[in-house]
């Protein structure tokens, strides 16, 4: 027996031939929608997001994982968190991140002398965020790259990127416990011994 075939009777009932009950049914349906949408607070059943209206903030509707314009986070003392490890510029498939390193002069870290992202080249893949070991670069601004009149304006430098940034409380260098201690002693997937 075939699955999903539904036999529909095509006999005409009196109701079908009069047409009026069906028309009335349709009118009632549409009228119900009309009154619900006009008389209830908010917008009734209307799901439209009124993009661009002054009272509507689109950021409320974007998911948290939306990838927007990049930003650079800073430490508690206000200095940039980036340590110029080149992970992001290495992983970037569009090769749009340009970093020049310099000495931070605290005997520990490097710092970017310049950190430039060409937003015109960026493909918004988010790999740089994944690659960053120190929570320095993020794409959680929920902002679209706005159109610019010249190409130069679309190339964002360190200052531009840090203007959108905020303090990050992540522990520099990573504070994760030893993975050998955290990982389960026995992985159930390998419990079954083929021998």
């Amino acid at each position, binding site marked *: 027996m075939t699955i999903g075939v539904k036999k529909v009777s095509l006999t005409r009932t009196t109701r*079908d031939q009069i047409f009026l009950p069906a*028309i009335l*049914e*349709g*009118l009632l349906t549409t*009228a119900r929608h009309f009154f619900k*949408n006009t008389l209830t607070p908010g917008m*009734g059943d*209307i*799901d439209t997001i009124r993009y661009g209206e002054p009272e509507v903030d689109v950021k409320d509707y974007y998911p948290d994982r939306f990838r927007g314009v990049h930003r650079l986070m800073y430490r508690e003392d206000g200095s940039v968190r980036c340590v110029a490890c080149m992970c992001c510029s290495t992983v970037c498939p569009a090769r749009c991140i340009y970093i020049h390193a310099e000495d931070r002069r605290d005997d520990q870290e490097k710092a970017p002398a310049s950190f430039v992202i060409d937003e015109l080249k960026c493909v918004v893949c988010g790999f740089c965020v994944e690659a960053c070991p120190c929570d320095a670069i993020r794409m959680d601004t929920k902002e679209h790259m706005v159109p610019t009149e010249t190409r130069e304006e679309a190339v964002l430098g360190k200052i531009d990127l840090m203007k959108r940034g905020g303090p990050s409380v992540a522990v520099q260098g990573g504070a994760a416990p030893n993975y050998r201690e955290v990982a389960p002693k026995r992985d159930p997937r390998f419990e079954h011994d083929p021998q």
Partner: protein
Amino acid sequence: MFNALVSLPPRLAATLRRLPVAWVWLAVVSLMLPATACDGEDPPSSVDAGAQMHLEPARLVFHPDTAPIAVDIVNDGKDPLFINNARLEGPDWSSFQITDARTSGIIAPGERATVHIEVDAASLKGPGDARPIVAAGAEPPEPIGPDEYRVGEASLRFSANGAEVSAPIVFEDPPWFGQYFLPALLKILALVMGFIMPLASLLTWLERKQSAMMQDRLGPNMAALGFGKVKLRLWGIPHFIADGVKMLFKEDFIPKYAHRALYSLAPLFAFAPALVVFAIMPFGDAVCYDHLGDVLSQADVDQCADGRGGTALQIAHIDVGLLYYFAIASLATYGTALAGWSSYNKWAILGSLRASAQMISYEVAIGLTIVGALLVYGTLEPHALVRAQMDSYWGIVLQPVGLILFMTAGIAETKRAPFDLPEGESEIIGYFIEYSGMRFGLFFLAEFIEVIFMSAMVATLFLGGWSVPFMGAHGFETAWAAQLFLTMLGLGLTVIGVGAWRASKHGETFGVLLVTVGSLHLFGAAYSLFTGWGTALPHILVIAIGLLTWGAKVFILCWVQLLIRWTLRPADEPGLEGPASAVDRQHRPDGGDRVPHAARGAASHLARFMELRR
């Protein structure tokens, strides 16, 4: 009473709590209900109770060509009325004549007797021999020429049971300009500029907004009236202004091989008949200029109707009214036919052929559906049709099938979906394909004006025109009819106002205004409960209620036509395709409550039907 709210749905309860005005009204009414039980007295009336009788009409106006006027002597008392004398008095009594012999006799309580008065106009023709008493120093009246009439005055007096009633009689020959031309001009301007064109413009917006609301969309909402920094969105109503400006500034394109003269005239041929048919449409009973504050009987108002001291709220009182409509409506076919032919475009001419064929063929259906109403009411004249409905039942009661058929044929006549074979915006091309700018706008407006006219015809033929149930020319028949009317109106306004209030923050002012006005109506109903107010209303109030009622009926019917158009054939959706809705609906995750499929139910039935016929 408030404890009952606990069991109500929270949303409803919140609504009710926001309506302190309604609570106050409920409290007032519940306090007053006992008062109505002992309210046995008759409501106050303008008629003097001591006379026990009155005349209808209370004032007789004659013109040179006036037919004999019927005067009713109505017995208002509880005793039989013995009439022993009916006579004419006054300076010109000899120019008038009582033609009915029955000037004496007995009239039972509640009954009425009729006499006819006619004028001998020739005796009032100049050169005048009237010698009016002129005060010393005053200007003597101007002499009257041989072809002019002088003003004649007399009074009709009945005496019975020791009391006497009288009605003044006036004869005059009014100037043509002031009596006929000026009122007609004012009525045309008021109807066209004050009602039809604004409503047609509004419908261009409403069609888009209403379809959006029916299909869970936002619809037009961006156009705004700007006053400096303040921007009034008004739910997008200013869109029709934006559309008008857009159409006026678009290129006025004329195809190279088009017949220029006919191409330019065709929009007018389509537009003008749509407006001209409104000439026969009565939008209210007659207005009596000099008695706006008085309580008038129907006989008084009827006397004003043909120009004697007033004017009927109808531009042309033609006895063959509905035939006039058919004559003019068939002229509208020229607009479509010429538009298609003069465009020099084969799709346009095919569309115009479809349009004219459809308009002519559905006129037959319209004519036949009207015949039922004509047989019942026995007249072709729309004003008389409404009066006949006031006296018996509305057409919707006597001719319900006729109403449905008339609506159907009317939608076909206006070439709108689901009868949009001539245009079929999304699939086939209509007769005005070559038109752009305001020339196209004229076709578009003509369509909406036809929608308004069809609504007005349905209101006139089947819904009693301007009339309110249980209401005559003097006011409501009984006090409870007034209370019912005021309560329904007040509740309706309040509900709409609360809806607008809650729907958006911009609607707050409008909503509060509506709730206030609605509450005032409810207080009016309460006032009527106390005093029996409503059975004797001033003439101007009756006229205003009639005008508003007519407007409301037409507007609601326009709304219904838009509802039908967007239900039976949603935009850009092939109406006659798709699976049968009843079966399809069961398989939809949302139960088929979304618009297109459920709304296409009838069309799907039609599709199945046609498929079976094949």
